[in-house]
């Protein structure tokens, strides 16, 4: 594995100096933003509000972790929002119409999510369909399945215990935040400290070289797209539990929030660079932006303008910094 060592070192030598700067910069902006929002509105810097924002951040956050992996390899997954919709429907439908016990229905919908991601990965690695077009196709397909299976009927009347994940608290912290926290730690360690993580950077920097170095490029790609689908399934579970109903339009537009958070967090859209910690800062910033705008009286529809601007601007800044380097 000498090839691997060289690649790893190359990735390490190339990425950190710029990345550390990007992340410090981001963290600094985050602190300033927190201070300003706190000064402008005394409801903002309260434990209750911040924990509630964490609750709202989880659904996008869980998906952003594998999305970071995917974008590091130079790929993209636009189908995540539709997978959330499909999983939410499969959860409700299998419970209501197949008569599955609810725990089984949850497991089933997670399997559907993983399978949806696996199909993306399979065609991307085997047939070499570009990830962009593959996931645009399944963006339509999975949403279409959600609409077709549910016939636009919603499912409600879930039992009380089901709401624990989305609305309950564990040790004073929203339950789903523990899931996100666990995901962040696992993903962070996997990306930074394992051969799997280093392989992602190698693929993103030079896929051909990674192949010739004997890295299991296709297997790793298949895995990360499957993980992306699985994460969307978990996100759907949390979402349904939080809002108490299942509808086929759930998760529409998630791809924007997820990709914006990842790119804002310093992951290069061209692949080869990025960290989980950056993504977490990006997520927090976007959630605070939404919350701050809402508290100052800006309506929800106007916040997506800001997120769109953030997505384009952060890509522009990152790519100009990268070019200078």
């Amino acid at each position, binding site marked *: 594995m000498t090839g691997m060592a060289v690649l790893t070192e190359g990735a390490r030598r190339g990425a950190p100096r710029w990345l550390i700067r990007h992340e410090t910069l981001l963290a600094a902006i985050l602190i300033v933003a927190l201070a300003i929002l706190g000064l402008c509105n005394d409801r903002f810097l309260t434990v209750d509000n911040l924990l509630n924002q964490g609750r709202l951040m989880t659904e996008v956050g869980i998906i952003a972790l594998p999305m970071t992996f995917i974008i590091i390899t130079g790929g993209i997954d636009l189908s995540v929002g539709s997978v959330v919709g499909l999983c939410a429907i499969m959860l409700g439908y299998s419970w209501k119409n197949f008569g599955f016990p609810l725990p089984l229905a949850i497991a089933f919908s997670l399997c559907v999510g993983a399978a949806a991601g696996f199909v993306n990965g399979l065609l991307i690695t085997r047939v070499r*369909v570009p990830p962009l077009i593959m996931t645009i196709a399944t963006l339509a397909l999975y949403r279409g399945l959600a609409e077709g299976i549910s016939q636009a009927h919603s499912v409600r009347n879930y039992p009380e215990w089901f709401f624990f994940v989305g609305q309950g608290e564990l040790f004073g912290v929203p339950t789903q935040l523990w899931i996100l926290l666990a995901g962040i730690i696992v993903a962070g360690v996997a990306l930074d400290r394992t051969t799997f993580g280093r392989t992602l950077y190698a693929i993103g920097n030079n896929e051909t070289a990674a192949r010739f170095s004997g890295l299991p490029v296709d297997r790793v790609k298949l895995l990360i797209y499957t993980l992306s689908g699985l994460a969307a399934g978990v996100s759907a579970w949390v979402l349904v539990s939080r809002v108490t109903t299942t509808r086929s339009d759930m998760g529409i*537009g998630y791809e*924007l929030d997820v990709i914006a958070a990842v790119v804002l967090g310093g992951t290069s859209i061209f692949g080869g660079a990025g960290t989980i910690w950056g993504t977490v800062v990006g997520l927090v910033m976007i959630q605070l932006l939404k919350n701050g705008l809402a508290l100052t009286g800006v309506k929800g529809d106007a916040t997506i303008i800001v997120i*769109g601007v953030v997505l*384009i601007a952060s*890509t522009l800044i990152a790519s100009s910094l990268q070019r200078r380097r």
Partner: protein
Amino acid sequence: VSAATIAPARAGEGGLLRAFASQEGLLAFAIVAVAILVGLDNARFLAVRNLSDIILGNAYIAVAAVGMSMVIVSGNIDISVGALIGVLATISGSLAVAGAPLAVVWAAPLVVGVLVMALQGAVIAYLKIPAIVVTLGMLSILKGGLISVTGGRWITDLPESFHLADIELFGILPMPVVIMITATILAALWMRYSARGRAIYATGGNAEAARLVGVSPQKTVVMVFALHGFFAGIAALLFATQLKVIQSTVPPNLELTVITAAVVGGVSILGGVGTVVGSTLAAVLIAEIASALVFINVSPYWIHAVQGVLILVTVVADILRRRRRRAGG
């Protein structure tokens, strides 16, 4: 690569068979086949009224798909077109209600469309930001902007003269069909025979090779996006004028339908290949299938799944075909 992709994919000897096996031939065959099969099951599907409704109601998608085809041939993608069409339709409708002269009402969406798309093209070409990021960002800017400005209000009391889609040329040819066919033919001829049109294929086939033969890939991409904006403007006019009211929100999933039409029409997502005749036929086919679902008692809620499958089948077939051709020499 470049020589093969730049040369028009013209049917040589054995032209008839070759033409039939082309994407356009296949699509034309599929349109007829679907009509016959569904007609056998439910004859009402073949009523003139229904067939003309299918084409009239979806001509704007075919027009937008012409621009989308150019964008994809140049090696890019645009997912903001649905939102843009919503914005342009609202602009045009608001101007009409405010009593602006008809020329302004009809020209405004074209101008704004060209400006917005050219801006995106410039960011993509000169600042080297991937098209998916720029257009995803623009999608949410346009969508959020439209809803927060209008609040999703319906625009009503549109003046009678505004309704471009109701005009019938020589008393028989409905305007949407005239525009759809004219746009398709002009764009097809321009892309095939003009130097600038060929430059789109060259840029999408191999940008570096294009640069070496004196084509500027950057200028070409900006031009393509500007044209795409122009077609989006026309599409917005047809869309806005087909009903008596305009709902000032973004038509959901419109960009997916437009992309499906372009891809299924034989525009290779790998860039450099494809015709707008195919995309127009594909737009008709998709609309026909959507209508057919109702007639064979399948819920129309399945249409997005059908679209997804159509994209997948076309793309996989395209990739396998290319691979086999390469393997064959």
